[in-house]
């Protein structure tokens, strides 16, 4: 048999992660009951090893495994984003898990197996691989959301996510089945060739198939009207998990969407445009307006992440190279801002897990100036204030949309960004201006602080060298088969 068809280089990064899952489980088993430190160190080592492998095999894979995966620069770029998020939540996590007495070794193996699923979502060039990657990611997330069995809201979040997520998966599978019924293949190359060649791409089963695919993916992105799960799940889940969930899976869903829809986006024509236009406008508006009067920082960040999914949809709608590369850049900066903001949120929480009040931030600017400064970086980044990374992400995506002729949608997006200034700035106002409510002092946790500092540095750094990062993103998009 021709073994060159099984080119392991194409799946080197997920392969390392898969082996890492088993290694971490073994280390955790061998290191005794009370000691979780070895499992954490093993998981960090696995993530670093996977990142090294990812950099070493950057854009060298090509399509392999009978056209199932492509180890191109696009996959490598996203792998690096996923691995960065995994590293941060593994580094920051133990303090939170200890505080809630839920420090189990499975946390690390679940994060790793979830990231492995995401890697396959980004690398898949076959709907089947993308689907299996999505399920692997989601299954781990369902469990992670319910990682604190003693808290009712965590169980509720897990169950809600599981039920709605399985429902969305049903849509996705049904969509894949209809596409298969129409073209006799789940291969994405065949899919885009069919859409480009057909006179009416939506004739037969294709229209329903593509619509169902879109529903399945937009659920994972938390796009309105499939967003109802996200505030409840982010709010109920343990906060380290919320940080992970709000960042990496969203990036993975956009990676899969780009894989499926980027090339055919031009050929899909009017019905497709109209649907995405409405979805994007609704998502931005509903997300931002709902975030306005949230008392809980976790819910506010959840709605803010809904709004960001709306901005990101502009890049997909634009369908041009700048739009796709802009999404990559946007996500690379967005994940750091979100992980950082969620991590600071649980660091300053002093009223117990059930209550994440914005009032927790009172006077933070004077008691922990550095932490408050970093939180300000995340908030300003999420608004999109230059020269932070968030500004350039929005700039690229919006420019791409204008180039593609969606001027009114960009006007809506800019107005929405203006609305979002209010609730992001409110956090800063509370940090620097509200009176102290005589709360307990914020714990000093070096590892978690380091993770937050790394996030803040990345947000600033990506804002300093946006051009060269965008060039890497452009090359990554161009390397897609």
């Amino acid at each position, binding site marked *: 048999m021709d073994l060159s068809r*099984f080119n392991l280089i194409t*799946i080197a990064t997920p392969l390392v992660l*898969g082996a890492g*899952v088993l290694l971490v*489980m073994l280390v955790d088993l061998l290191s005794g009951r009370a000691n979780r430190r070895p499992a954490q160190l093993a998981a960090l080592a696995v993530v670093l090893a996977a990142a090294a492998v990812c950099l070493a095999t950057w854009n060298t894979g090509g399509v392999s*495994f*009978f056209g*199932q*995966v492509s180890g191109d620069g696009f996959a490598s770029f996203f792998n690096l984003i996923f691995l960065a998020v995994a590293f941060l939540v593994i580094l920051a996590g133990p303090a939170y898990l200890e505080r809630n*007495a839920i420090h*189990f070794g*499975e946390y690390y*193996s*679940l994060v790793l*197996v*979830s990231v*492995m*699923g995401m890697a*396959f979502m980004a690398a898949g060039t*076959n709907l*089947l*691989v993308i689907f*299996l*990657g999505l*399920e*692997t990611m989601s*299954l*781990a997330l*369902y*469990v992670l959301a*319910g*990682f604190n*069995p*003693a808290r009712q809201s965590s169980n509720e979040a897990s169950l809600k996510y599981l039920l709605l997520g399985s429902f969305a998966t049903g849509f996705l599978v049904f969509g894949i089945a209809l596409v298969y*019924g*129409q*073209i*006799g293949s789940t291969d994405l190359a065949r899919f885009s060739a069919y859409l480009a060649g057909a006179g009416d791409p939506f004739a*037969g*089963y294709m*229209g*329903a198939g593509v619509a169902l695919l879109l529903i399945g993916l937009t659920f994972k992105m938390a796009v309105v009207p499939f967003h109802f799960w996200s505030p409840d799940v982010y709010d109920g889940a343990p906060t380290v998990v919320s940080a992970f969930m709000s960042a990496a899976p969203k990036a993975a869903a956009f990676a899969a969407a780009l894989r499926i829809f980027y090339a055919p986006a031009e050929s899909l024509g009017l019905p497709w445009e109209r649907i995405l236009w409405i979805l994007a406008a609704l998502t931005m508006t509903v997300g931002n307006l709902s975030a306005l009067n949230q008392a809980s920082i976790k819910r506010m960040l959840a709605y803010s992440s809904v709004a960001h999914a709306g901005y990101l949809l502009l890049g997909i709608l634009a369908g041009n190279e700048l739009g796709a590369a802009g999404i990559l850049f946007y996500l690379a900066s967005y994940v750091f801002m979100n992980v950082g903001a969620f991590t600071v949120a649980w660091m300053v929480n002093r009223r117990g897990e059930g209550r994440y009040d914005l009032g927790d931030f009172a006077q933070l600017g004077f008691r922990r100036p550095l932490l408050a400064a970093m939180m300000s970086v995340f908030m300003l980044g999420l608004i999109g204030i230059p020269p932070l990374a968030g500004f350039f992400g929005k700039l690229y995506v919006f420019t791409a949309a204008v180039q593609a002729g969606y001027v009114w949608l960009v006007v809506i997006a800019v107005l929405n960004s203006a609305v979002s200034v209010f609730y992001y700035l409110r956090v800063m106002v509370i940090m620097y201006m509200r009176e102290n409510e005589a709360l307990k002092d914020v714990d000093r946790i070096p590892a978690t602080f380091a993770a937050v500092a790394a996030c803040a540095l990345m947000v600033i750094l990506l804002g300093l060298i946006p051009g060269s990062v965008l060039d890497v993103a452009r090359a990554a998009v161009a390397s897609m088969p």
Partner: protein
Amino acid sequence: MEAFFFLLLAVVSIFSGLMVILQKSPVASVLFLVLTLVCVAALFVMLSAPFIAAIQVIIYAGAIMVLFLFVLMLLNLQRFTEGAWSRFQITGVVVAAVLAVVTALLLRAVPLPADSGFLRETPGLGSVEAVGLSLFTEYLLPFEIASFLLLAGIIGAVILSRRRP
């Protein structure tokens, strides 16, 4: 003849699917689920996919359902004693009715082709040999990813069944 059997199996499977969620006794629900799965298996046979049909019966109707029944009997669940229709049930029925109407209208507006023809071009598509061959060549990677999917499920089960401190 084929259309008759298809209709028969379709009606029985949808009916028993409804009974799964309408039954008060969990054991009866599970038994109706077995009936649904067997009907779906028979549909697979009609699509000349005997391997999938056999797997469906052995794994779903056989192994998983037996497990379900065991768990139900061990848990000794009581019957649901719910009297009047709750608000959620009424909302559910209304939403389902609206969706059914919309789906019917859609199907009338956009007629779906009976088949796209590619299945007839590849005879023996559903045989054990064809499934085995494609599973270990073209679909080797998805097959292996599925094993990690199951691993994630196992880890999850371990966590959920952990004794509460």
